[in-house]
């Protein structure tokens, strides 16, 4: 079953074509490594799926829903089913880890918030760190908080832009393995990365972006 579908998508930034007449399908439960040179359009690809940007031409379907035609409130509701890990992770710096992780649940007024926080902290190896203020965390811990925040509400799609950028090799591998595990439970995971060693080692599907085209390998 196709989860994400790009149909003849064009995206142009101040005269420079990032994507031109690009089409691609990503199935439900797929784990995808998104590779390409710096500035090739990996982040734009993820921003298009998360509806943070709209294509200049073409259509993007997510679970048969055209996200290019949604209004502001519908986009917000759509994003509740997407977990996003950004390259520069932003937090509410003066609040605790627990508060930051619980934000997607608070926004959706979900139940059993404390139980879910404990479970997700356990998953990203941040047990007993919940009451720490974000400012006091190391770069690696911040990255793991960002991942915890992206997965706590069990999204259908997880989009990660360089999620292992600030982590050592072992932790990077365990984080990616965790995302692979989530894809096995049915979530569609797209990870943009530069770490070719990791990509080669884990042997997952790869989408390469180069010269305005998206090539599935």
């Amino acid at each position: 079953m196709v989860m994400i579908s790009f149909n003849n998508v064009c995206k142009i930034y101040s005269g420079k074509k990032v994507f031109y007449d690009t089409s691609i399908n990503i199935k439900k439960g797929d784990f995808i490594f998104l590779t390409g040179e710096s500035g090739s359009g990996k982040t734009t690809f993820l921003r298009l799926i998360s509806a943070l940007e709209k294509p200049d031409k073409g259509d993007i379907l997510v679970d048969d829903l055209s996200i290019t035609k949604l209004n502001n409130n519908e986009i917000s509701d759509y994003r509740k089913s997407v977990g996003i890990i950004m390259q520069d992770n932003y937090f509410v710096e003066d609040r605790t880890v627990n508060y930051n992780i619980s934000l997607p649940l608070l926004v959706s007024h979900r139940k059993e918030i404390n139980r879910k926080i404990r479970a997700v902290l356990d998953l990203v190896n941040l047990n007993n760190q919940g009451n720490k203020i974000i400012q006091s965390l190391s770069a690696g811990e911040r990255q793991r908080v960002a991942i915890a925040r992206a997965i706590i509400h069990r999204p259908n799609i997880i989009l990660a832009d360089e999620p292992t950028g600030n982590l050592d090799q072992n932790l990077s591998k365990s984080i990616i393995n965790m995302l692979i595990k989530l894809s096995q439970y049915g979530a569609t995971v797209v990870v943009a990365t530069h770490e070719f060693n990791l990509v080669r080692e884990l042997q997952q599907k790869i989408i390469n972006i180069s010269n305005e085209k998206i090539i599935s390998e």
Partner: protein
Amino acid sequence: MKKLFQNRLSLEALMSYMKHHKECFQYNAKLLFKNPMKLFLIIIPISIAISLVLVSYILIKNINNNLIDYEHEKIILFLKKDIPNNYVDDIKKNISKKNNIISIDFYTEEESLNLYSKINSRDNVVNNLSFNPLPKTIIIKRKVIDYDYDYDYENNDLNIFLENNAYIDSYSSNIIFLKKTIYIKNILYKFLIFALIFLILILINVINNYIKIEVTSNKNKILIYRIIGARNSYIRREYMYFPIVLNFLCFLIGFILAQFITRYFSNSIGDFLYSYEIQYSFLNISFVEAVLMVFFIIIIGVTTCKIVINRFLDEDF
């Protein structure tokens, strides 16, 4: 809110919703007191503007309240003793043909004395009189042309008629007093409009600038809310309590300030009215009027806040 009750009706969800409101309120209250200098610079101009509106409103209200029987010009005609009854009717008929006449009432000598006693509360004096000093009287009520201060109340057709009638002994009018009060009221109405415009401009300017600074410095936080699927209304709520807390505080300060100023002006008005033998009683704004005023400034504040945040969200995200 509607969606919350439709889809996820649970006590925990409701508690979470209420908790967010509480957190937003606390956050905005803290924000206001975080920087005392900023607080001072924001609160002072709004409080002054509110007090100006309140002062002009309270003074108008007091003038209207104390002069409730002085809406129309009252002309009292003292007729000569030997006036035949048919001439009284002629005079009434002639006066009724003049412009802006509201009522004409004739009083016999005895009725005149009773009326004098009633109006001036001087039963003791009147009851002890050995004779009636008052003649037959006609009281005319004439409409005052409110906003025409230059209208000539002394050389118009009615006054010319009264001057030249042989059976009218004398007459008196309260027009000079009315002209003065109308003049004061007109100035106060103009001042109220000016103060209201000043208040609205100050509110829009202060809240616009403050919210702009706040949302710009919290750009990253807002980005987090956007990517986790928060609606604009949820993000707005974070800042919406600011104008509510601010305006409520400013109203309290403005109200206290207005009390001092109005007491001072009320004394002057009281002295002025006392010279016309009118007892002045001070009347403050009622609870309902205060609530309406608070509601009015909060509506302006919240609307400005909403417009600024919406524009920011539309432009930057």
